[in-house]
């Protein structure tokens, strides 16, 4: 519904709906009616794609940004793209039908699988699949029981940004926005979404081991209360919460904010040169998106062609660079000069990222003796934190 705020901001618009899919994960796949395609045939002439804004650009917003035209020319599949603002909206649209391909975030993928709205992808039919980083394949948000349901697109971490003049020495820990936040009173910034509570949980995993947090998206009452408490203390030093990219760039360029969470793309866009980013020692939250094919598609060949196209090194490089995230393959880095900045392919780095997942009452870390706090409670708590 909040289609207006694109980018990852909205990935955090996660609904409790995902519960169904997560609970069902592993059970419903076996009786899934849809099968992966065995072989490819002639393309159908058109393909309808549902994606985040900025994922399917055909030059209408900016003539220089276009990776659809080359696809249309090469395959004869005319692309009809629709964008969505939240995973919920995407879920509703997929249910209503009419889409062949969807780009889904970690909080949507399993829902689609559970509802049988997407079919397994025969990755052998995709030339580009082999080159994709191993650490992105066969993950709990894109595969079920070892069966791939889609192709990884791009990924990124929610990093710590700091003003190099105001914050020295360079921080290596999130403590500058939590326990030491008062040093930068009124100039701390934080991401404006309930999912940010997970960032506090990541911090507590290291600094309050007695809480026993195993996964920042699986918090029981006590762990959750501790994270909320930490954020309430932090709020006293927060100058503003940011939810969009432009706001954060402005705030760091003007010095209104000097330390807080960020995305790599924001660091790349800041022209003053007074900021730097770090992946703190505690690790960080992040995202990883997946291209999937609708089970009811009438254009499977065009759909496979798109998956292959968008995962091909040059196109994947262009699309992920435009969006501001790491590409999905090493080869894509030949077409980008900023792969290093995004730590693309750095497995060690990627392993420190807790990819966004919907918090649900069945703890996602596998604990069965307690109930975890679900996302609707996260939302309420977030509003209380902001006061």
């Amino acid at each position, binding site marked *: *519904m*909040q*289609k*207006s*705020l*694109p*980018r990852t*901001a909205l990935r955090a618009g996660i609904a409790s709906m995902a519960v169904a899919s997560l609970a069902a994960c592993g059970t419903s796949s076996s009786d899934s009616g849809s099968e992966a395609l065995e072989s490819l045939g002639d393309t159908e002439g058109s393909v309808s794609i549902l994606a985040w*804004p*900025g994922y399917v650009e055909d*030059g*209408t*917003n*900016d*003539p220089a940004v276009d990776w659809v035209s080359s696809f249309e020319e090469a395959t004869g599949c005319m692309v009809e793209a*629709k*964008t*969505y603002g939240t995973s919920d*909206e995407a879920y509703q*649209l997929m249910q*209503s039908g009419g889409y062949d391909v969807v780009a889904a975030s970690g909080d949507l993928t399993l829902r689609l699988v559970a509802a049988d709205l997407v079919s397994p992808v025969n990755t052998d039919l995709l030339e580009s699949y082999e080159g994709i980083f191993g650490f992105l394949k066969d993950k709990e948000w894109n595969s079920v029981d070892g069966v791939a349901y889609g192709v990884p697109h791009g990924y990124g971490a929610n990093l710590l940004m700091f003003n190099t003049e105001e914050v020295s020495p360079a921080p290596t820990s999130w403590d500058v926005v939590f326990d030491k936040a008062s040093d930068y009173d009124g100039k701390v910034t934080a991401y404006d979404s309930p999912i940010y509570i997970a960032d506090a949980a990541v911090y507590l995993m290291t600094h309050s081991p007695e809480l026993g947090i195993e996964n920042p998206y699986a918090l029981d009452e006590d762990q959750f209360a501790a994270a909320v408490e930490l954020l309430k203390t932090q709020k006293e030093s927060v100058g503003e919460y940011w939810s*969009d*990219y*432009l706001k954060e*760039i*402005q705030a760091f*360029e*003007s010095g209104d904010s000097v330390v807080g969470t960020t995305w790599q*793309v924001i660091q790349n*866009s*800041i*022209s*003053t040169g007074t900021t730097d980013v770090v992946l703190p020692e505690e690790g960080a939250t992040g995202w990883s998106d997946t291209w999937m094919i609708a089970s009811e598609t009438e254009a499977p060949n065009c759909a496979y062609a798109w998956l292959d196209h968008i995962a091909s090194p040059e196109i994947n490089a262009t699309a992920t660079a*435009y969006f*501001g995230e790491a590409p999905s393959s090493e080869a894509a880095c030949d077409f980008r000069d900023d792969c290093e900045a995004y730590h693309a392919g750095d497995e060690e780095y990627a392993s420190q990222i807790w990819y966004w997942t919907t918090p649900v009452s069945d703890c996602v870390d596998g604990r069965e003796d307690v109930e975890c706090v679900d996302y609707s409670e996260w939302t309420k708590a977030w509003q209380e934190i902001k006061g």
Partner: protein
Amino acid sequence: MQLGRAARWVLGGVTAVVLALIYLPLGVVFLNSISTSESLSWPPPGFTLEWWGRALQSEGALHALGTSVLVALVASAIALVLGTLAAMALSRHRFFGKESVNLLIVLPIALPGIVTGIALNNAFRTIVGVQLGVWTLIVAHATFCIVTVYNNAFARLNASGTRLEEASMDLGAGLFTTFRLVTFPRLKSALLAGGLLAFALSFDEIIVTTFTAGPGVTTLPLWILQNMFRPNQAPVVAVIAVILAVVSVVPLAIAQRLTAKDAQAVSR
């Protein structure tokens, strides 16, 4: 009016200062549209015409503009019909529940946009069971635009009285002929003013729009919102805003001229 010289100067001064303040942020927008900074940072590090070139070539913006104009036109047209009917009913008749009807017309604009937005979104999807699209958006916009037409028409109908209409009927003209030849010509400029306000209201509306536009429908404000957050697009958006403000002067000026002339004619 008899006002001291000093009072006139003070009032003029206040007006000048207020206008200057109104245009200060717009000046900032203009500077952004020619600044080399992509994030609207202050002061502009340098100047460029690149954004103007890019904006003029932006198909997305053009398409969104088309959608906005279409939605605003249809919504205003619906509002014109419904607002005029309501104004004639309330200005020419006395009946039980008149106050309630008046309240009903005012409510969609008086209640916060987010309330109207989620109420209509919910109704469209669950009660009516339709997919959100351009029509749901038009219906929503028409609903909150009725009031501007209604108020303008109502004021004019009240000011012009019923004598001429009665004379026309006495002379044997039918209801529709009377409306066409007597009521409508005197109402015309008020409808224009009301319609223009309705158009403007619809054109820049973002909150109700967010909740009632289908996923494929991008009005200009939605396009702006989406592009504010695309890399390198913020200055392009500033260009569009400047162009809109400048271009809007033309219809405003025409409407002003017409209304002023008519209003004088009617009150005399």
